[in-house]
């Protein structure tokens, strides 16, 4: 589990993990509705992380705990 920050750019969500200095585009997010948001997120660099599904944050950027499932570190 690690703290990540999700922000929005022109191309969509951006993933940032301060501890590892990973900043990358999020290519897909499992749930992306106001009621249910999160789940498995896939990064452009191949990494896959998991955010506990929750209601969508009112404002981005948003800090959240995420679990690494697969891919580059």
């Amino acid at each position, binding site marked *: 589990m690690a703290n990540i*920050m999700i*922000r929005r750019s022109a191309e969509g969500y951006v993933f*940032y993990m*301060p501890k590892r*200095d*990973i*900043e*990358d585009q999020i290519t897909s997010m499992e749930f992306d509705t106001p009621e249910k948001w999160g789940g498995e997120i896939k990064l*452009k*660099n191949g990494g896959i992380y998991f955010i506990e599904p929750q209601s969508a944050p009112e*404002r981005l*950027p*948003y*800090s959240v705990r995420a679990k690494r499932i697969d891919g*580059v570190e």
Partner: protein
Amino acid sequence: MAALTREETQALIEEVLEVYPEKAKKDRAKHMMVNDKALESSKKCITSNRKSLPGVMTMRGCAYAGSKGVVWGPIKDMISISHGPIGCGQYARGGRRNYYVGTTGVDTFCEINFTSDFQEKDIVFGGDKKLTKLMEEIEVLFPLNKGISVQSECPIGLIGDDIEAVSKKMAAQINKPVVPVRCEGFRGVSQSLGHHIANDSVRDWILSNRDGQAFEKTPYDVAILGDYNIGGDAWASRILLEEMGLRVVAQWSGDGTLAEMENTPNVKLNLLHCYRSMNYISRHMEEKYGIPWLEYNFFGPTKIAESLRAIASHFDDRIKEGAERVIEKYTPAMNAVIAKFKPRLQGKKVMLYVGGLRPRHVVGAYEDLGMEVVGTGYEFAHNDDYDRTMKDMGDATLIYDDVTGHELDEFVKAMKPDLIGSGIKEKYVFHKMGVPFRQLHSWDYSGPYHGYDGFAIFAKDMDLTLNNPVWKMLKAPWLKDEATAEKKAA
């Protein structure tokens, strides 16, 4: 014209690393790469922000240097106490030439060394009492200070002093912010962690101090982040922003004050110059206060024009017109500078090895002068910096991370650059080798180099260094003897 092809550069890296033992060679090889613009992420080709190899000469600093020297030091109306033995504070004092306006010792304190001067008894019995006494003395002697920060040196962490408790107590007593900063030098692998710790302490102790207080806002408020006013850099940047119609609320932290920092949450846009040392606080402000941030680059007219337009794009037409007006106003002067110096500098090769931002930021300024950067590297960058660097650099240029003394010497010998830009620790080595050298940390006691005014000085300085006749007169005595001996024999 590329100095070397991709294969040649790769061969050079291998040749230079040849002298190391097997394990060290493997480790160091990960810190070198040949640039490939096509790559998206640097992750697979270069390793950065790792512990330096024991036994090699590294140019890195420590967390204390990153916090006290870089981020906290230049805040002019706060007193930064170097808490611990006296050397760290004394040898780091005033070295970065962070200019400021004010009367030193009365209302500004950057150039004075405040230290608790730890002795054996303080290590044995703890230094909290001494710290309390020191702060009380500060209040009597320098009543105009706006706050105090306690910058821990190594022993504080080792003996476990509770500087937080002392700070809290004293903050209540003197009714000013007192910030404990846990930036002991042994933390992290370089000064980079010091920047992070300093950012976090600003976030925790300073940033929200004025939340909810009235502040007269305008739609054109911005803050300059990560400009430390070295040789007046922040001033040269600030006038351009003001000329295009923006209001600069805060300077972080060159010539900055505590009040400016506390007012920063009210701005519309954070302008970030040194990404490495202040991205943390920018990201925090984006999350907490919804303030967007933008990286900009004020080195060389091409990049300045790009940056001014990028900044203006966040505002209305008035500012956009303002940006065009500023660019138009300075273009003739800049063309004159380029016309004067480009013929003298065209085609010269430059190698850089600086801290966390300049290895990529100054590339544009050199290119404006027709010079080519053939090698670059950072002391303490992270991978996100290399991601950005790869786009700014030419293909097949050499990139090195945390380069060692031996490696840099050998690279210079092999690539024969016409100019090297690095710091004081490298300066005299290359002077003795007879290679023109400019310090790019302190601008070699010149400056400012930011902004349009700065570029004129930059171009002049590069010309003065590079075309100085003195380099031709330098020859090591033993080499000279050989030459004359040969002549005599013949």
